């Protein structure tokens, strides 16, 4: 039962992480590979504020979301002037840079040793060390965020974002400020990624750079692509599906060093198969003969 | 020489070519005109092999080329001059022709380097450049040429390549009035050499000069296919360009 609760908590965190990615990548086709960096910043912000400054849950969450959001503005500032190929590489570089900083800025992050001893949230004298209680916290946050994002999907903002994805020049011609729209979508995505990171830190009580690597980004990408980029429900279903899928592997007898790579291989295969099957219509074709 | 049978081509919901048919005999020169969006360039792209029609067949010299790749079609003799210049800008003018002359050699042979052969090819290229009075620009980068000069280069390059059918997509677009005559003369020379030429143009008076036949396209299908005089005077033509003349 504890195991099921654990999986549910993970799913709730990932629901926030992937649906927020779905906004900028799914709707806007903004290939932001630094999403995992926003996730990392949220987690580390919470970890540091909770352990070093003794900040409470609400303070940490707000700080995490803000810092992640601000980080996104940095990304937007550089990347949004660029076109497809360069943009993806730019966000990739950001992601790798954050990763390198996490590993090397030892005075701040303790490098690969990570930050242990992150306390569980404390408020209303509820014992959040009880995982069931934590599940209620993360679950209700996830539902809350999903409702907000669902409403966001219905707004003209979302439509403009989608239009921008298919033809930037056409959208500009209709007097939409595409740069503003993209920056805002980045901010929202990143802030929620920061929230997910904060929850993650609060749950696992220990973070280190390895949880925020490119491999994790590939996982997020796989979920969003499998659930159809831009599809709200698809993203939710894909999150459930892909978080739960490799779990049976745990019960097969194999040396522990193999479990991780096997999960990785599973996701990569699913990513490829999904893209192959949907290749004709998964992304609008921006190029011409 | 060229036989197009009922080809249809769509991208998603856009039916660009609809049951289009026509024939060309060897040595003929035909013009293709039609309003914007009628499918002219798409037709050329389908002939060159960049699009494959969903329906219909294309025969070149009695060979079914409908499913052939572009490079096989060009090697079979179909040449193409593009609407947006297809000149290799970063190469020198001379290199453009040399590349065309080498076009038909096999892939593996192309890996070998023979200075002797290269010298021979360069000489041959110079003779082609002389035909279009660009011999003095041989070592210059192709991007330094004017629009008209680039067009001439592209056409003579296709001649050097050894094409039998010439698909010319708006050969005088963006060419200064002075150079237009040079382009016209070059096209006339193609005719004299017995090549088959298909020209897309907007200016019907321009094509009248050397086309024995004009094909009018509208919404992806052939509306008229006749001599220039008959086409110019036809009511249908007026209709598709200017709307109905019904008073």
């Amino acid at each position, binding site marked *: 039962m504890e195991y099921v609760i654990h999986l549910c908590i993970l799913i709730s965190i990932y629901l926030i992480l992937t649906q927020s990615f779905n906004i900028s990548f799914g709707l806007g086709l903004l290939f932001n590979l630094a999403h995992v960096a926003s996730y990392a910043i949220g987690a580390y912000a919470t970890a540091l504020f909770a352990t070093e400054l003794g900040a409470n849950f609400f303070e940490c969450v707000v700080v995490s979301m803000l810092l992640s959001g601000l980080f996104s503005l940095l990304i937007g500032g550089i990347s949004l002037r660029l076109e497809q190929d360069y943009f993806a590489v*730019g966000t990739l*570089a950001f992601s790798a*840079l954050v990763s390198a900083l996490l590993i090397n800025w030892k005075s701040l992050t303790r490098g690969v040793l990570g930050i242990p001893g992150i306390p569980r949230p404390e408020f209303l004298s509820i014992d959040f060390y009880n995982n069931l209680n934590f599940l209620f916290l993360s679950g209700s946050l996830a539902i809350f965020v999903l409702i907000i994002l669902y409403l966001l999907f219905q707004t003209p903002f979302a439509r403009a974002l989608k239009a921008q994805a298919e033809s930037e020049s056409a959208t500009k011609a209709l007097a939409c400020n595409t740069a503003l729209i993209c920056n805002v979508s980045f901010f929202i995505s990143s802030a929620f990624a920061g929230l997910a990171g904060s929850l993650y830190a609060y749950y696992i009580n220990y973070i280190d750079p390895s949880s925020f690597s490119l491999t994790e980004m590939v996982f997020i990408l796989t979920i969003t692509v499998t659930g159809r980029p831009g599809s709200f429900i698809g993203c939710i279903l894909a999150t459930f599906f892909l978080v739960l899928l490799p779990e049976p592997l745990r019960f097969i007898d194999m040396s522990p060093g193999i479990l991780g790579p096997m999960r990785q*291989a599973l996701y990569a295969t699913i990513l490829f198969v999904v893209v192959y099957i949907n290749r004709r219509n998964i992304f609008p074709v921006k190029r011409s003969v | 020489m060229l036989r197009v049978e009922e080809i249809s081509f769509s991208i998603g919901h856009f039916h660009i070519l609809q049951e289009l048919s026509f024939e060309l005999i060897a040595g003929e020169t035909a013009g293709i005109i039609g309003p914007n969006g009628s499918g002219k360039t798409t037709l050329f792209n389908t002939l060159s092999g*960049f699009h494959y029609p969903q329906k219909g067949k294309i025969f070149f010299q009695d060979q079914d080329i409908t499913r052939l*790749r572009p490079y096989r079609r060009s090697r079979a003799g179909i040449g193409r001059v593009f609407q947006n210049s297809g000149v290799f800008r970063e190469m020198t003018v001379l290199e453009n022709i040399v590349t065309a002359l080498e076009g038909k050699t096999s892939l593996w042979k192309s890996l070998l380097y023979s200075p002797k052969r290269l010298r021979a090819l360069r000489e041959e290229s110079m003779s082609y450049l002389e035909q279009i009075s660009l011999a003095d620009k041989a070592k210059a980068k192709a991007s330094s040429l004017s629009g008209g000069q680039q067009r001439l280069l592209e056409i003579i390059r296709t001649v050097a390549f050894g094409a039998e059918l010439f698909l010319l997509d708006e050969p005088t677009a963006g060419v200064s009035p002075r150079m237009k005559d040079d382009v016209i003369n070059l096209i006339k020379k193609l005719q004299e050499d017995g090549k088959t030429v298909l020209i897309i143009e907007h200016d019907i008076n321009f094509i009248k000069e050397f086309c024995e036949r004009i094909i009018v396209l509208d919404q992806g299908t052939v509306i008229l296919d006749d001599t220039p005089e008959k086409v110019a005077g036809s009511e249908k033509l007026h209709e598709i360009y200017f709307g109905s003349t019904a008073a």
Partner: protein
Amino acid sequence: MDILPQLLVNALITGSIYALASSGLSLTYGLLRILNFAHGHFMMAGAYVFYFFVVEHELALFPAALLTIIAGAIFSFLALKIFIFPFTAFSFFLAFVTTIALGTLLESAVSIVFGVNVKSLSTGASFESIEIGGVYITPVQIIIIASAIILLSLLACVIHKTPFGRRVRALSESEHAAQALGMSKNKISTLCFTVATLFAIYAGVMVGYETNLQPTMGNAYTIKAFAAMILGGLGNIWGTIAGSYLLGLIENLSIGLDFGGYSLPAGYKDAFAFLIILLVLLFRPQGLFVRGGRKF
């Protein structure tokens, strides 16, 4: 300041490896207009295959190299057919995502087969430093620099003197015009992609001799190759090669030099590639070696 010559030599070594890795990537980009995210992973996997033959099966160098080349060629053909060609007709993102999948698959496969621990191709004793004019260099390092010069010069000859090279340049510039002049995009791309992969594998093997191998090193090398390409201008091979050496120089100088008593920890070396990409994209996205104004 007298460590400067040593730093320059180190820069030459690092730059040579990067140049071998990124020249192939640039070639691929020019022809297929895709960024092969798995390029660094090709380096890594190919080096592990070589390791398999040389260390685990103790084959002599030449047969091991031959087998690795054959395996590499077969692999690159399959990778192209499965992960790249089906997607080039569509959006650029598709091939990027599928190469991400390919890279991840390679990383996990190598992790499973060889384990995640660090492996090295060099056997220590036979690679002692020689001193030449105050600079220390090992035989392996000399080979790296020399072979890079030879291979890249060979590449230059092929691209600028042979008919094949003209075709590659033509296709990179104007693929439709090139195809209309008898050139097969598929065949030429396949050949170039295979050469690019073999160069990458060779660079990976050099990394294995010079430092060590780890399944996770693919990402870092891919990003560095991207950095070299962005420095030099996407699709511009010689710019990319120059960018590679520049990257090597920046990396080595940044951690080697003393900036008024403060020197950067070595761990930040990799971060420089990333920072460079961002700076160049910010100020001069078309690359340092391209005349300004090209549309990107």
